[in-house]
């Protein structure tokens, strides 16, 4: 009988190898259909009617001009908003469906909205606006801790609101046919996407069919169907025609989620030998009209004996925050790592030595020490490092910066149906989604590994809510959930097949294994039967088995685990005469338990580095204080890094028994946490002065240099 436990290192034929994404060719050639690509006969285009003001009241919404606009088939207004409160620009007030996209846009602009406009509040960098409830956490005795220190370093740091900026905007195409609702959304949550839509649309969940085969990014912002998804389905029902509604880029950037800002004043107490004694933080920021929390302070060095952390949210007239890849971690990493590194610089201690010296204050000293050493080797730390501001002469300064991070990543609950057909074909069905991470590929690898088949032999069906339910892809939970469910399903199907095959090979099922396309006797591999011949013994019956990932049970059995660590080091150059920061190199060392596909795992880290570099150097959602309008709701001034901006990236995944024995752990979030913190530390190391606020644009760098640099 086959054992479901993950195979040991020498026993793996696919797991851990470098395998290309199965859907790469479709994506590259353009045959992959995204939500926007679904074109059905009679399709209508819908556009949202949104608030032009950030604060105030709606007095009236008049649809008459829109209704008579050419091509218009349906106009809807949110009756609840009449007399209601406006809280941010872009707030949804209604929607219009028309024959062409242009006609829909035109008609949406013709909806006449009468506002009573009030002065908005969008500023978040100033603590005077932080009037939210204060949350206070204390350990030890902060006064005593600061007294115990030889040196107290003080600093201010911060990072702005950024958005998810998914390349594929939010939205869906929908059709109502014979009383059933068909939806093609862009979602991170196929199995539960339609929850909550049934009441509004009036079609039960059992008659709602969700189909999302490809995704252009979600990063935590696409768990629900949202108001616009529901509206799109309602318009489809009302008009009896398929309707497509995807957000325009400017609206996408304003209302489809953002990552809260975080600013703060810090005090770090350290002894002359570098030992940290105290950490005090007063932090504020905004999640727009959404909530606020910065829970992870101090970050990583959690066991600092004396800490006092207060945080307060600022409610601003901006769209609401949503989970953004590793919620609150990148902010807490930037704030903590900056404060700690500034303290090290104050006593003229090398940053690597300092982070190592205090490693017992973390919860995984051995992992971090190992990773720090590898990262330092990869970046050439010994040759390149220097104390803060003590680099080479000339106007261009080079520097290194370090950051550490952690994440959970326990696999989510998931089910999988595995079918073995009499013709030998194999199909896995899971109601999960592939966000571009390689979920589809991972399932094929696990099933192929289990059945001794190449991945081409496995058909993976995902992206539909008719398949066995799986969790949302958030919090790095997908790889653990889907790999375990598909491992359990395929093992149990295989064992069923072995029972049928056993009499033909004259041995008991226990003595058999499936390897290299055959089922054979473990001790006498020549006693074998080809896979297809074995499957033909099923007669006319397809063998179907369900695997279920129960988080606790799977964790106890070593299929999955939680809690990983990573280290990153950035190498930057700063032109002190122009303020331009250039990435030279970035190294990421990451643990994520047992790696299913080395290639997609590394890709995940590369992608995270690029996203992190972008947030360090360029990204910022800028709002006008007077009008509350987002000034850069486009892709010209909402800047993302391009290929020439990212420098040379190196990824090192931790492997070996110690890591692999823990089972599979998710990887989506952890590598995106450290880049900004590492880069900010590298810039400080290079030019001798902390640039307190991200992004590290030339204006901020020049300003910091003028206030106290070495240039």
């Amino acid at each position, binding site marked *: 009988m086959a054992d479901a436990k993950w195979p040991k290192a020498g026993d793996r034929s696919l797991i851990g190898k470098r395998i290309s994404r199965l859907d790469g060719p479709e994506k590259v050639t353009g045959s992959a259909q995204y939500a926007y690509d679904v074109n059905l006969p009679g399709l209508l285009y819908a556009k949202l009617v949104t608030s032009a003001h950030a604060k105030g009241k709606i007095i009236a919404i008049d649809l008459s001009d829109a209704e008579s606009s050419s091509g218009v088939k349906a106009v809807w207004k949110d009756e609840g908003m009449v007399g209601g409160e406006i809280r941010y620009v872009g707030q949804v007030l209604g929607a219009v469906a028309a024959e062409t996209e242009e006609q829909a846009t*035109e008609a949406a602009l013709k909806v006449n909205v009468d506002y009573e406009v009030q002065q908005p509040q969008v500023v978040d960098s100033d603590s005077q606006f932080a009037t939210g409830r204060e949350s206070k956490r204390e350990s030890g005795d902060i006064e005593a801790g600061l007294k115990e220190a030889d040196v107290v370093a003080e600093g201010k740091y911060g990072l702005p609101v950024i958005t998810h900026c998914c390349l594929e905007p939010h939205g869906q195409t929908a059709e109502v046919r014979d009383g059933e609702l068909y939806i093609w959304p862009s979602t991170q949550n196929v199995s539960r996407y339609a929850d909550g839509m049934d009441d509004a649309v009036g079609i039960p969940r059992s008659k709602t069919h969700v189909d999302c085969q490809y995704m252009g990014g979600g990063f935590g912002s696409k768990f629900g169907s949202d108001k616009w998804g529901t509206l799109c389905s309602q318009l489809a029902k009302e008009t009896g025609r398929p309707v497509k509604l995807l957000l325009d880029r400017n609206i996408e950037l304003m209302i489809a989620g953002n990552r809260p800002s975080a600013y703060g004043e810090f005090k770090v107490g350290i002894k002359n030998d570098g030992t940290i004694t105290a950490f005090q933080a007063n932090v504020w920021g905004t999640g727009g009209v959404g909530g606020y929390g910065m829970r992870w302070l101090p970050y990583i060095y959690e066991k600092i004996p004396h800490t006092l952390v207060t945080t307060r949210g600022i409610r601003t007239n901006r769209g609401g925050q949503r989970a953004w890849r590793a919620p609150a971690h990148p902010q807490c990493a930037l704030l903590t790592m900056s404060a700690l590194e500034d303290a090290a610089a104050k006593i003229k201690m090398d940053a690597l030595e300092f982070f190592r010296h205090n490693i017992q204050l973390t919860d995984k000293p051995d992992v971090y020490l190992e990773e720090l050493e590898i990262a330092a080797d990869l970046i050439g730390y010994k040759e390149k490092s220097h104390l803060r501001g003590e680099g080479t002469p000339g106007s261009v300064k080079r520097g290194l910066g370090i950051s550490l991070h952690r994440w959970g990543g326990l696999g989510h609950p998931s089910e999988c149906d595995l079918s073995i057909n009499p013709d030998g074909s194999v199909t896995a069905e899971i109601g999960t989604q592939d966000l571009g991470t390689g979920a589809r590929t991972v399932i094929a690898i696990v099933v192929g590994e289990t059945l001794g088949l190449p991945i081409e032999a496995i058909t993976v069906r995902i992206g539909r809510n008719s398949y066995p339910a799986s969790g949302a892809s958030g919090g790095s939970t997908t790889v653990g959930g889907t790999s375990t469910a598909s491992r359990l399903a395929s093992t149990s199907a295989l064992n069923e097949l072995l029972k049928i095959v056993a009499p033909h090979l004259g041995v008991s099922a226990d003595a058999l294994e499936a390897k290299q396309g055959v089922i054979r006797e473990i001790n006498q591999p020549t006693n074998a039967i080809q896979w297809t011949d074995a499957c033909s013994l099923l007669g006319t019956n397809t063998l179907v088995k369900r695997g279920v990932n129960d988080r606790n049970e799977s964790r106890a059995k070593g299929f999955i685990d939680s809690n990983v660590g990573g280290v990153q080091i950035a190498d930057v150059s700063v032109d002190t005469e122009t303020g331009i920061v250039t990435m030279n190199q970035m190294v990421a060392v990451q643990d994520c338990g047992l790696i299913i596909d080395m290639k997609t795992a590394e890709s995940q880290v590369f992608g995270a580095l690029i996203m992190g570099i972008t947030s360090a150097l360029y990204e910022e959602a800028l709002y006008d204080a007077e009008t509350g309008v987002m000034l850069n709701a486009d892709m010209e001034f909402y800047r993302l890094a*391009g290929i020439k901006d990212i420098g040379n990236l190196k990824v090192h995944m931790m492997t070996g028994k110690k890591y692999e024995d823990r089972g599979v752990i998710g990887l989506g979030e952890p590598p995106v946490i450290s880049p900004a913190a590492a880069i900010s530390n590298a810039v400080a190391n290079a030019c001798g002065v902390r640039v307190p606020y991200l992004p590290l644009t030339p*204006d901020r760098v020049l300003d910091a240099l003028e206030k106290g640099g070495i240039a």
Partner: protein
Amino acid sequence: MKSFEYSAPNTIEEAIESLGNRWGETEIMAGGTDLVTSLKQRITAPQRVVSLKNISTLREIHESSDLIQIGAMTTLADLSNHSTIQKHFPSLVEAARSISSPQILNAGTLGGDLCQRPRCWYFRNGYGLLAQNGGKSLIPAGDNRYHAIFGNDGPAYFVSASSLGPPLIALGASVSVVGADGKSRQIALDDFFRIPKSESERETSLKPNEILTAIHIPLSGLNNSVYEIRHRHGLDWPYATAAVAFKLSGSKASDVRIVLGHVAPTPWLASKAGKSLEGAEVTMSSAAHCAQSATQGAKTLSGNAYKVPMVKTSVKRAILIAAGIQMKG
């Protein structure tokens, strides 16, 4: 965008006839890389768009012994690949190539670069060229990090978006414009750009029914260069640029012209700086001195003071590059 009538005439005369005499009624389209964005953003909602793409004469490049004439519809890619231009005008090649997106270089034209509308985010968000809300400019108290430090006495605060304007002005270029009467007039490029005084004006001296047809650059053997301060390497505008051109005899500079980009509502002639280098030997220190004087008269807003050191650096570096002096550090 609002629907409009589209025409693509074969001659300049026909094109002029199709143009209205009020801004916004009709719009000229060259490569469309800026115009289409403006239409989508509803910066303009014309009844008719007149494309110049079928007027082949507008794509021609003519050379004589002392002049090169470049048709306004010459793409930025063709401009930067032209051998005479490469030989005499490294500043133009550098300015064009730094735009760096192959799509924009292949579709965008020289005329379009000079006539492109400002990127001011208040303008692009519908507050008009002068960024006014209730009769008051939003810029002084607003987010003006990308706005002007020269020529900003108001009411205009935006910066000219053209990267090719400054080097062309430094090289003494002029432009041909054909107007409603069908006649062509020639104006110095420096006079072509202007600072609008009201919302009904635009950023150049073109009238709504006039077409920029060609750019003329004298071949006068000037050393020339630009230095652009850019953060992102592609799909972005510079924070500040400096274009310089001068005659170098031995190591002495004469006929010095220094033009700043992206710091004023027009390309900005730094005449004091030019004078400070006139007749001087080009060295590290004279370049630095000249760069310092290029910042004179700058009037910073609440969020754009950083452009002053950028002007200094870009002027200094541009001079050294033009003179072939290796920079230290």
